[in-house]
């Protein structure tokens, strides 16, 4: 494998192996039973269709990015607003949630005497310092995080699948609460949103999707083979429940490493994603020029550390609203990818007539998933309010960035 492929895998898999994604995978497995396995494969297929459509549109112009596609399709300010709203709040909120989860895991699995918040702050400091290193070093470290997390999940998944605690008939039973599985199926789509960012402009089945299937499918099967679906569906940490059942205390310790490494990988991946978004905004003359390259390294990580640290210190982690805010940020992320996908189709269509309606399927399914998650939520109105708030705030910020820019004519 050449370095760009490893790099794209390391960055694309950061979110997939995070505890947040593992909760979604675990709860979905609980609600859907074995049906979650083909549905994950379907989600990967939809994701790969989406990636191919976007890449096809990007291939026509070497300078183009997702932002240029959006600009052509919906205009400068909405494109900038959607880019800002879908990436930066997600970085802050996901980082807060992941670091706190890592703190608890470290405290409960490895060192009882070490304060969980102390560990969360320590990890925040170390991951922030990592961003000041040259990019090559950051990628190498990210590869280490992802590699260790992926290996841990894969090992537990294969071990658990080869030593099932239940008969095949029981594993393949349809769970009683399958009727509540609509939301779970849609949540599986969230596992892949955004993972294509570092895929490059190549067509074909994305390697990220292959790795995800290779690692997560055995894990989902192993979870079903050891834990009752009802328990998986209702648990807030289904990955810990399953790993304990699979390998006892050793399983917990392996999962503990996975949780911490997965959190580091997701944090680093999201930070790099936001750095790339800053560079795109700058290249499109929608942000100061110094943010295109080195400037982002000195600005974004410290600001992120301050924002995440403030969220943790003010008690957001202990607030029920964090889940709601994080879900809103994830939905905005999905909205961004639906819009980019439709923009890509419009761009291809403008150059040559499309032979079929096939490319529309992937973004249509993603949009349906988005609406399903929104409507199935226990607080849909609250979710919608926060999404609208983020979009409005980001629109003002995008307008401000464009109008204070001396080269605003180029931006518009």
């Amino acid at each position: 494998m050449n370095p760009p492929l490893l790099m794209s895998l390391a960055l694309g898999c950061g979110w997939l192996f995070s505890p947040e994604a593992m909760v979604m995978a675990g709860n979905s497995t609980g609600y859907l039973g074995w049906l979650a396995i083909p549905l994950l494969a379907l989600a990967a297929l939809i994701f790969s269709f989406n990636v191919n459509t976007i890449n096809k549109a990007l291939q026509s112009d070497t300078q183009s990015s997702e932002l240029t596609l959006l600009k052509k399709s919906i205009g400068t300010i909405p494109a900038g607003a959607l880019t800002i709203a879908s990436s930066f709040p997600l970085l802050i909120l996901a980082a807060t949630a992941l670091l706190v989860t890592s703190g608890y895991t470290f405290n409960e699995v490895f060192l009882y005497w070490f304060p969980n918040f102390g560990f969360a702050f320590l990890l925040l400091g170390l991951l922030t310092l990592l961003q000041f290193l040259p990019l090559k070093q950051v990628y190498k470290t990210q590869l280490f995080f992802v590699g260790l997390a992926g290996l841990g999940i894969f090992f537990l998944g294969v071990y658990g699948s080869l030593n099932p605690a239940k008969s095949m008939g029981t594993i393949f039973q349809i769970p009683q609460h399958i009727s509540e599985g609509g939301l779970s199926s849609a949540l599986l789509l969230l596992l892949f949103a955004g993972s294509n960012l570092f895929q490059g402009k190549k067509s074909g089945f994305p390697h990220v999707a292959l790795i995800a299937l290779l690692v997560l499918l055995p894990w989902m099967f192993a979870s079903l083979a050891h834990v009752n679906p009802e328990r998986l569906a209702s648990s807030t940490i289904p990955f810990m429940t399953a790993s304990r059942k699979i390998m006892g205390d050793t399983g917990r310790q392996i999962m503990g490493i996975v949780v911490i490494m997965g959190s580091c990988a997701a944090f680093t991946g999201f930070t790099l994603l936001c750095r790339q978004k800053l560079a795109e905004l700058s290249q499109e003359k929608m942000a100061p020029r110094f943010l295109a390259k080195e400037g982002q390294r000195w600005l974004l990580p410290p600001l992120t550390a301050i924002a995440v640290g403030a969220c943790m210190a003010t008690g957001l982690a202990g607030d029920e609203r964090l889940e709601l805010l994080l879900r809103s940020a994830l939905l905005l992320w999905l909205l961004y990818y639906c819009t980019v996908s439709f923009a890509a189709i419009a761009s291809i269509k403008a150059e040559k007539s499309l032979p079929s309606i096939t490319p529309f399927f992937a973004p249509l399914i993603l949009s349906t998933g988005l609406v399903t998650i929104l409507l199935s939520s226990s607080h849909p109105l609250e979710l919608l309010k926060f999404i609208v708030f983020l979009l409005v705030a980001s629109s003002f910020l995008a307008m401000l960035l464009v109008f204070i820019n001396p080269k605003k004519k180029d931006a518009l």
Partner: protein
Amino acid sequence: MKRILLLLSIFFFVGTSQLMAADAPTMSKDELKGHLGSDKVVILDVRSGRDWSSSEFMIQGAIRAAGSDIATWSKNYTKDQTLVLYCA
């Protein structure tokens, strides 16, 4: 670079010292162990959000209670009972 590191260090210490500044009377782990199972001691788990959902454990015999809803659940206990609350 030095300024950024200095700012980050200050921020780190301000954040952690705030968390350690507890003013309520506390009970050590060993003290609590001695009271486990006693009718006079009620252990209340007032963790919420991630503090609750990320944790695998709960103290033996603890009852979940919302920290914000103290007016409601405090009526369930008498003055001679010791209420032990834990939030992290």
